[in-house]
């Protein structure tokens, strides 16, 4: 798919993408975000794109997720946990990192504990999927389990970690 081809798909599906951004809660910013999306897609070197519309949807989805996450990180910048683990990027170079790292290690231990508590298989599946970026089908093949087992383990692991993440916030 050439750049011109991708642009044609973008223009043909402008309304659908706009609707998708609005469904994501873009509100009045939807038009601006669509423009930002196109600038980003254009300036990102890509190889041939097999499914151009799906590619544009994915880029739009990532844009909305990044936007939400960077806003949330900015809101939390002063909180201990985010500084400690660097969920917000580390920035306070004038404060030696001793204490921040200690907190981070403590919480990282909790994260690993929560994952291990699900059992070795689920923990491995989550790490392979989320940290190493391996697809579900390949993980099923690697571990010799069914795809539905991988899906179920993945769902449990996600839920456990999201719950823990929210508990960190409550403290």
């Amino acid at each position, binding site marked *: 798919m050439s750049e011109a081809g991708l642009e044609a798909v973008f223009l043909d599906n402008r309304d*659908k993408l706009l*609707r*998708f951004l609005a*469904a*994501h*809660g873009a509100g009045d910013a939807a038009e601006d975000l669509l423009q*930002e999306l196109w*600038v*980003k897609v*254009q*300036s*990102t070197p890509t190889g041939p794109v097999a*499914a151009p*519309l*799906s590619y544009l*949807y*994915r880029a739009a989805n990532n844009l*909305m*997720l990044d936007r*939400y*996450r960077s806003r949330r990180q900015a809101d939390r910048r002063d909180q201990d946990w*985010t500084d400690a*683990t*660097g*969920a917000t*990027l*580390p*920035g306070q*170079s*004038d404060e030696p*990192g001793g204490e921040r*790292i200690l907190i*981070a*290690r403590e*919480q*990282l231990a909790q*994260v690993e504990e929560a994952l291990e508590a699900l059992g070795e298989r689920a923990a*491995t599946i989550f*790490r*392979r999927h*989320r*940290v*190493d970026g391996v697809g*579900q089908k390949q993980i099923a*093949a*690697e*571990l010799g389990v069914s795809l539905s087992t991988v*899906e179920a383990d*993945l*769902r449990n692991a*996600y*839920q456990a*970690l*999201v*719950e823990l*993440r*929210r*508990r960190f*916030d*409550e403290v």
Partner: protein
Amino acid sequence: MARIWDDLDARALDWVIRTRAPDFDDWDGFTLWLEAAPEHAERYHAIAADSADMAEALPPAPLPHTMPPPSRTGWATRRGWIGGALAACLLLAVGIGAWERRAQPYVVQTAAGETRLIALPDGSRIAMNGASRIALDRRDPRVATLEAGQALFTIRHDDDAPFVLSLGDAKLVDLGTQFDVTRGPDDLRIAVSEGAAEYRLGTRAIRLPAGRGMNMHGTDIATRTVDTAGVGGWTRGQLDYAGAPLEQVAGDLSRNLGIAIRVAPAIARQPFRGTIALAGLKRDPAGAGPLLGVAMRRTADGWEMQPTP
């Protein structure tokens, strides 16, 4: 905040998992679900962000010992399977000790405009800027190679096992805590904000304490004073310069914004002094023009800095 998890979260999580699959294509169905209630998007965003926070804090999984290294793709084919399995058994039988200690390199990379945080098992952290590539070793968290781009290293110091960053033929050895490194095709910039680091190339060693940095262009090396508060400013959305050439500023902006920004040759060496706030520039790169004293012109694939008329 009593609610931690409910049914709607479970449904949002399903979409988070499904939409992350590279072959997901039910975008119409996903749009309809999002449109059904504003809360759907809120839950989806929150779960995606929560899980990303957690996943980024985790070090990569150790490779299962029973598997061949992933790079040996031939082993996975059916034809080669039996021979491969036999070879794997032999390898396991005789080689497990060596395997345990063997380097297990992996590469982490970011697209332009994307940042990523790597937490190493020893408590060290690497914040990667966009368009960057770092090689690491699962077996040894004290070595890394910056192959391209920029990263801020916050290292847990250990006198007995210093952290060593490879930069082509050169090495940067951590003697303290925090330093920022940018590597281009033929230039290198280092800035130390906490502790100290030592740059080593052949028999040459340059010690860089906090507040010092060095620039290398080709084979020329110049050390300089850096403002420690500004080091790694990109992680907070700002770039500080004390007389850097515009071509360097353009490279930094491209990496941070994910937008191709070039500079006209006539002004490539023009120095810039000041602080650029990245917020807002993503949507409107032209906004950098007045601050930089240049005219920003749209090009086929991005922007170009040109002399002001």
